[in-house]
């Protein structure tokens, strides 16, 4: 593997400011925007007239062409149709024009482009507990689109860098370099770095929050779920940081993104403003769980194999609020096994033993259960478990090796 090919590293994804997850970085709170003030600035069939916006759209069209041809997409038609349906519901007046793509990337992120297409990362699907939360994220991104934040922030950045350059010249500092190139064979995994051009201000994030809450409430989803998304993300970040014994960064004056805590609080207030008393809201949990079910194991696999024990544990515990099962206990074991601190092999063994007691335990659970037993010195039981694994998956890629172990 190319361990020094740093640009192959997915970590560059979250650097972008235009993507949702980047707004996780902390900052001073922004005054709450009232949802009643949020009206869409884009109607159906919008096309740009200004020269610079036309240029940007042209680039974005090329980006969409690349995105739709990318082999990093999950193309499961039912799942994509489900997402398309959601964006059609909460996308506002221009919803019919919007396109949505699902990327096989285990990070929590959703990205909206100025030409009206969105990319949702598969890590997002793992973290949403119901359809209302997913709709909330999509509606937030639609908010950026409907309030024309991209072109506004693009122009802001341009204006600011113009001022900087003149100021810098006066101060005798060498001016800015050749500038950033957008376009060419834009590759999906690089999106985050490209979108650093669309750094949304605190005000814009607040607008998108307000617009998003309004959109989902109008579609019958409980708007409080948007606040819950932040609560879950904060929890995950804290769990991940706590494991690494780092503190979640506190706000600084110079940060342009509002603190998730204050956004969560603002969203709670906003939710109460847009909630119509007496109206029935539905968070669509069972529908969501059944739609995600076919890819759930893949999503868990992607997440757990990244070996971020704090975050993975938090996510598993959150999913387990709906009830533990063989799949979740198996992945609980996997988190311990990969973390591999003192005593983790025992913890992992216990989780595997519990997992195989459930009817939905995946075959891999039997394999690891067997290997754990053998390591504990309980060879006959271990081999029996491995035998069970081979029975369930005779064509498993590692069957030749496991068969030799069974003897």
């Amino acid at each position, binding site marked *: 593997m190319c361990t020094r090919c740093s640009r192959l590293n997915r970590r*560059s994804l979250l650097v972008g400011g235009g993507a949702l997850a980047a707004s996780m970085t902390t900052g001073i709170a922004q005054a709450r925007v009232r949802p009643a003030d949020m009206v869409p600035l884009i109607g159906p069939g919008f096309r740009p007239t200004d020269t610079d916006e036309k240029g940007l759209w042209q680039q974005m069209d090329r980006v969409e062409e690349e995105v739709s041809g990318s082999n990093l997409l999950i193309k499961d038609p039912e799942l994509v149709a489900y997402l398309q349906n959601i964006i059609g519901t909460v996308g506002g007046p221009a919803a019919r024009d919007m396109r949505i793509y699902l990327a096989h990337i285990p990070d929590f992120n959703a990205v909206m482009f100025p030409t009206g297409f969105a990319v949702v990362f598969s890590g997002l699907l793992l973290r949403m507990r119901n359809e209302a939360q997913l709709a909330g994220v999509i509606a937030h991104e639609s908010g950026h689109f409907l309030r024309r934040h991209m072109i506004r922030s693009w122009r802001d950045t341009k204006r600011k860098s113009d001022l900087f350059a003149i100021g810098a010249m006066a101060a005798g500092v060498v001016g800015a370099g*050749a*500038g950033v190139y957008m376009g060419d064979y834009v590759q999906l995994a690089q999106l985050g770095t490209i979108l650093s051009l669309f750094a949304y201000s605190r005000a814009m994030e607040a607008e998108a929050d307000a617009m998003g809450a309004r959109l989902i409430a109008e579609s019958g989803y409980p708007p409080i779920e948007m606040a819950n998304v932040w609560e879950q993300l904060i929890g995950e970040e804290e769990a991940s940081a706590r494991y690494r014994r780092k503190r979640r960064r506190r706000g600084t004056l110079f940060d342009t993104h509002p603190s998730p805590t204050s956004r969560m609080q603002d969203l709670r207030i906003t939710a109460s403003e847009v909630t119509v008393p007496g109206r029935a809201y539905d968070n669509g949990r069972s529908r969501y769980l059944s739609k995600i079910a076919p890819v759930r194991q893949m999503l868990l696999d992607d997440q757990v194999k990244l070996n971020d024990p704090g975050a993975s544990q938090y996510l598993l515990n959150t999913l387990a609020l709906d009830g533990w099962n063989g799949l979740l206990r198996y992945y609980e074991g996997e988190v311990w096994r990969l973390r591999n601190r003192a005593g983790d092999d025992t913890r992992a063994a216990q989780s595997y033993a519990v997992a195989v007691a459930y009817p939905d335990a995946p075959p891999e659970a039997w394999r690891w259960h067997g290997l754990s037993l053998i390591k504990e010195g309980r060879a006959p039981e271990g081999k029996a478990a491995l035998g069970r694994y081979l029975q369930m998956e005779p064509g498993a890629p590692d069957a030749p090796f496991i068969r030799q172990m069974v003897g």
Partner: protein
Amino acid sequence: MRKLGLAFALVAGVAVSGCVQSRQYADVQFTPPQGDYRLLIMRPDVVVNSLTTGGMSEPRADWTEQARGNIIKSLGNEQSGRGGKVLVLARRNELPNVSAEEIADLERLHYAVGNSIALHKYSGASLPTKHGKGLEYTLGEDAVSLGRRTGYDYALFLYAQDNIASSGRTALQVLGVAGCIIGFCAPSGGSNQFAYASLVDLRTGEVVWFNVLQTGSQLPGVKFGDIRTQPGADQMVERLLGRMKAGKEVRKAAEKR
């Protein structure tokens, strides 16, 4: 952002001066295509940006479309000057018998190969096993299969970027350079171009020729061949492709005669 990094690195290298530089590598046995050959030009990537005062690159749709049309025309003319038949691929699904996915896979492989060439031939991380061997890179059997099914002999991958300084930026440049007189130099990069071309022989799958072109100027108001104009595009294409030299062994053989 590998490609960006590459463009940055190379352009940044040019930014401190005004110059045209280009260095080509070819297979030792390479002879530039002549006579009746068929050339497939893969989706050419052309962008023209306006360099704002602050150094930001602002893509201009109108300039880009103009330049793209010019470059495609220049490519056609340049190649017809050599007597070949050219198809410029605008979308991945334009070739009969070849799926869009196959073209995509070839593009992705070329991305890795092109970057390898740029890294190991142009950026100082040379591979000792390739010393003195010209170009020793291939796209392999997939490229040969493409050639066989479509009847093309060569494929050309081309990428071109032109950043044209706006008047605001030119003004800044004047200030910067003027400052040098009083001992206070603050040059800011002016118009610049970066392009590469890669020629693949579809009968063998090998990259037989590769060239990088960079131009740039610190001098205010100097524009190298503006590719928004036909002559400018012709000039870039000419610089990139027109001086295609034969490989080392072929040249040596020619000299001996």
